[in-house]
């Protein structure tokens, strides 16, 4: 009765009138928590289920992306006779190929049954394709690294060394093929789902994940001391693409359907990630602050992966997001 809210005032009027006349005609007031809820959908309950994935998955996106694209750099470096750089890149790729399955298995609800992933080959499931891409990546990277190291350290001589060199070049090329797919398929993985903010950006996501992977691989190699013009050029390329994607994201809005990208904490993660990988990395490189540009890009690439999973959780829990996505 002390409240001055309109509904409380109306309630007071109704009480007075009821006291005087015994009957109150017309509508009453909607009380908060009253019988007819004003939430979207069914009591605001999610229409689709938000992802159950925890920190391992965005971290895997980062590790797999950087590892996969390291193999691409290794292949290019090996082709142009930068053997030391190719070795460093293959070590990175191998580290990524070992860490990736560990992270993936850790995230499973039943890690001991992970081997069931290898029962089927299913082109219509991006998860199944991803598993096989990862298997092929490991199959190429680990022997590829061994062959490359044996060749580089001149362990054997004569025809055996020739054979190792040929084997290494084939395996490194194979690693590059499966590595570049490993870095990009993750965009398909979350793009081809029922989560509106993800599927509305299914074309952008593989570009973002792949390019972030390439930039991260170049940045890691630069931080390991390989300060060469070719890696700097790749750094420019990745930062430029990421800057373009930042503009794309801010133009290609879908209202309530993908508001998780522009609002909430998830929106901030996306924004911070895109700025660190895009404009900031670009500017730092222009001022020749290469290590800072590399660090900025790496942090941005990691943050934006966490951002995209957070976007999925927010968008998947928002019934209005699903209803609004119909119109696109």
């Amino acid at each position, binding site marked *: 009765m002390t409240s001055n809210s309109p509904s409380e005032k109306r309630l007071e009027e109704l009480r007075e009138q009821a006291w005087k006349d015994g009957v109150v005609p017309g509508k009453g007031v909607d009380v908060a928590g009253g019988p007819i809820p004003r939430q979207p959908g069914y009591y605001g309950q999610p229409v689709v289920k938000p992802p159950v994935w925890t920190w391992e998955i965005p971290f895997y996106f980062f590790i797999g992306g950087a590892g996969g694209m390291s193999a691409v750099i290794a292949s290019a470096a090996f082709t142009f006779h930068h053997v030391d750089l190719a070795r460093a890149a293959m070590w990175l790729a191998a580290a990524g190929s070992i860490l990736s399955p560990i992270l993936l298995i850790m995230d499973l609800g*039943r890690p001991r049954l992970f081997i069931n992933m290898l029962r089927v080959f299913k082109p219509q499931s991006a998860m199944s394709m991803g598993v096989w891409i990862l298997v092929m990546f490991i199959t190429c990277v680990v022997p590829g690294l061994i062959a490359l190291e044996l060749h580089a350290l001149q362990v054997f001589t004569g025809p055996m060394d020739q054979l190792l060199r040929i084997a290494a070049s084939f395996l490194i090329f194979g690693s590059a093929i499966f590595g570049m797919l490993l870095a990009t398929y993750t965009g398909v993985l979350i793009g081809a789902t029922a989560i509106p903010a993800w599927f509305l950006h299914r074309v952008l996501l593989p570009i973002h994940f792949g390019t972030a992977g390439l930039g991260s691989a170049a940045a890691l190699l630069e931080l390991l001391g390989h300060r060469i013009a070719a890696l700097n050029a790749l750094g420019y390329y990745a930062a430029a693409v990421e800057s373009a994607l930042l503009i794309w994201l801010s133009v290609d809005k879908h209202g309530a359907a993908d508001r998780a990208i522009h609002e909430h904490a998830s929106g901030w993660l996306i924004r911070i990630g895109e700025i660190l990988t895009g404009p900031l990395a670009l500017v730092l490189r222009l001022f020749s602050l290469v290590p800072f540009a590399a660090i900025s890009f790496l942090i941005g690439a990691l943050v934006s992966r966490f951002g995209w999973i957070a976007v999925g959780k927010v968008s998947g829990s928002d019934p209005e997001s699903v209803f609004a996505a119909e119109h696109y």
Partner: protein
Amino acid sequence: MIGEGIQSTNQRKHSYVQDRVEVGFFTDPSVCIGCKACEVACKEWNQVPDDGFTWSGNSYDNTGHLGASTWRHVMFLEQDRQKGNQITGPMGLTEAEDPFRWVFLSDVCKHCEEAGCLEACPTGSIVRTEVGSVLVQNDVCNGCGYCVVSCPFGVIDRRPEPLPDAGGAFKCTFCYDRQKSGLVPACAKVCPTESIVFGRLDDLRARGAERVQQLQQSGYNDAQLYDPTETSVRGIHAFFLILGEPEAYGLPPKPQIPTIYLKSAWTSAFATAIASLIAALAAFAFFS
């Protein structure tokens, strides 16, 4: 069917699994009384664990939504709309219209014609049965969680710790174990008003269309079937009659199977992969 006693498809033994006949559920809220017997029967028969209890404050619905440990869910809608040709107005004292209706609908896995969860499953744990239902094989599922984000209806979910069988994905099994023995799914068997009808899919579709017509003639102007046959889901085997719009029931008006997004996403992925390889080769060719 109602009035057929033990000859009703909800009660009599059948051989649909052996005969490989497509079966389904038709759920009709116009006769549902909100008793939740379907929820209880489902939990008991399938030994679905207790996943906690909280007062939601949302009408009489304290179940919330379908999930790993909720395979039938009775929704309680309170709407300021007329139900059929009911007499409205506040207790009949004045002429003012103040319509109100209470609608109950038992939600369940839709067993889609094109099922998102089935296509997404990377272990082959989710299969299509002889009767056209979608079944998760619990002993094969490793809990990757990809079906969870691939279901356009938000039905399947991963069961959290510390519940029994935690880590796997669960949803309605269409009582496949009962059906193999010629029994009717538990929820349909116990439904006291035959709001849930189990039977041959073609029979049910005809029955659903007939029921909509009947209701519309009796003043339920907003009665319609919810069976998205014109989207990429291409129809559902557990379909519903709804009063009003699907959004109010938390049902997506145009559900799509996520595999339709694969083509554009993979094209983008391949293009990015090739572009990255060319960029790397070009960088080493021109800058070293």
